[in-house]
């Protein structure tokens, strides 16, 4: 089987994780123009909670459900306790307070789990490879692609087909208008924030068996999430999907062609997209 085909499929898997990571960041920004520099931290928490549950001998499937809910709850509380006090302030303070928060959580993670990373075992049922003729591929990675594809459809349906989704979309067009119509924008925002954070945590859980856990994975994830939303266009669901897949595939292919530069190339791809389309592939004027 061609190595490039294999890497493209790998790239789709990683790209879907990037999509999960970025979509919450993008929607939260769309709704309240709030940029969450602690977004990578919730991905970090997702991965570490999954790691901890594995240490306790609990099944991966349980953490797939419990961890996003738990981290979503952490996000919900954070929003209620801290973030809502800075909405009215200039956006520098949004950034600084989330940077401070990210720093605190990162140090707490090191305090609890230590400064060195560790690996997480692939769940037993998904260990091994699938073989169809000459096509050989790890089961777990196929599962990630399938699972995230289903999730993407669900997220799309929530945004396009439900009342919550229509409020979120309207809110990202004009927050003032939605609140004038009598919607509790801030209540909805807490919910959307918790959802976005939960999705980032889910990406962390899914990534843990592939990439392991380390206290500094949050920073890298934040950089990647930014690249994805900048490439795709801020505040756009389809932008996050297209951006995530593009970045995932670029990184994956490059890791065959020039392994040390694989991470570099996703930023080069970003710079190229920006020079051609400053608002991202599917972005509106911001």
């Amino acid at each position: 089987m061609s190595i490039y085909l294999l890497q493209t499929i790998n790239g789709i898997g990683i790209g879907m994780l990037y999509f999960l990571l970025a979509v919450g960041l993008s929607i939260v920004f769309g709704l309240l123009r709030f940029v969450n520099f602690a977004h990578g931290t919730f991905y970090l928490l997702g991965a570490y909670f999954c790691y901890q549950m594995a240490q306790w001998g609990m099944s991966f499937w349980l953490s797939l459900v419990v961890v996003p809910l738990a981290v979503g709850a952490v996000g919900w509380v954070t929003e209620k306790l801290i973030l809502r006090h800075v909405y009215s302030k200039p956006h520098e303070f949004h950034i600084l307070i989330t940077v401070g928060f990210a720093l605190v959580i990162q140090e707490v993670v090191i305090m609890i789990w230590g400064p060195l990373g560790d690996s997480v075992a692939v769940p037993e049922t998904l260990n091994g490879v699938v073989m169809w003729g000459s096509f050989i591929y790890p089961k777990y990675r196929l599962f990630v692609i399938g699972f995230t594809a289903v999730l993407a459809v669900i997220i799309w349906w929530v945004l396009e087909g439900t009342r919550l989704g229509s409020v979120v979309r309207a809110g990202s067009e004009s927050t003032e208008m939605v609140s004038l119509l009598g919607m509790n924008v801030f209540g909805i925002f807490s919910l959307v924030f918790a959802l976005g954070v939960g999705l980032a945590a889910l990406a962390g859980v899914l990534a843990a068996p592939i990439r392991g856990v380390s206290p500094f994975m949050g920073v890298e994830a934040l950089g990647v999430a930014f690249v994805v939303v900048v490439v795709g266009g801020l505040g756009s669901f389809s932008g996050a999907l297209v951006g995530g897949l593009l970045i995932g595939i670029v990184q994956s292919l490059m890791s065959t062609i020039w392994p040390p530069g694989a991470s570099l190339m996703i930023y080069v791809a970003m710079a190229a997209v920006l020079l051609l389309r400053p608002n991202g592939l599917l972005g509106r004027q911001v």
Partner: protein
Amino acid sequence: MISSKNFQFLTAAVIVVAMPLFMKSGSLASEVLIYALAAMACNLLLGYTGLLSFGQGVFFGLGSYTLGIVLTRLPISMPLALLGAVVVGGIGAAIVGWVAIRQRGTYFVMLTLAFAQMFYFLAYSLPDLTGGDNGLMDIPRKSISVAGQTLIPLETPWQFYGFVAVLFLIVYWMLRTVCDSIFGRTLLAVRDNEERAAAVGYNLRLLKLQAFVISGAVTGLAGALHALMTGIAPLSNAEYHTSEMILVMTVIGGTGNLLASLLGAAFYVLLGDWLSTLWPRWLLILGVVLMIVSLGMQGGLWGLCQKLAQLARGSRQARQDDDKSGAQGTGANGTNGTNGGHA
């Protein structure tokens, strides 16, 4: 009466001279001034132009690598290597700025951070040039001499401190002059109300780019001095953490005043030095401080000092002096009208 500008310069000079009297480590004192240079450069962007840059680590790293590469491979003297670091830092800032300044607000911030990551992975991917993970080692720190005669000895940490201190005061004076010039006033106008400044006819992109280049050049110098001090140009000088650290010093010190950045850098470096031996996870405290500053104490430490001074004086005059921009204290500058954004 002495002008506010001169008063602040004198204060900086007094701090620089006094540091050897109550600090036991020359390296630590040098580190304070080196990071103060970087924080002042960051402040020029954040406090004076309203640009929050997460990419300062790029220029700091560029400065370190430039000095390291030049001194370990080329027969070029140290002062020229420093100058090279300044130039490369400025050029790097021109490139990053040229792309990032096309965007505003949050988008701009995200771009600067993406560039910081890009530079980190670039440095990581080119081990032949940068030493990759290990960084550049064994950077020599020779005394500056002419015709065999030592002019400026740099052997001991305190000798090196003297060298850094002189450079610091020169750069401080230059930045002070830039901020007080018409150019600097125009930057304040851009910060306070971008639409208005554009409507008046200023070329916003050019102004921001110029501020970016100055900031990059000064940060490059700081990075080079750091490499000279430690004798290595490590990959960590280009990491996200460096960008974050420079920004945190600037914000905790207080924006819109250069002296505040010296305060912020001293706070960060000295607190870090003291706490990291007691408790390795001291960054947690820093995160909390950053959150407190963003929540309520928006003038940072400098704002706190001003408030205390105001309490001590308790006069109405003081309240006028403490007008939002806080930078000049004279309250006489015309761009202060909207009090927008930054405390």
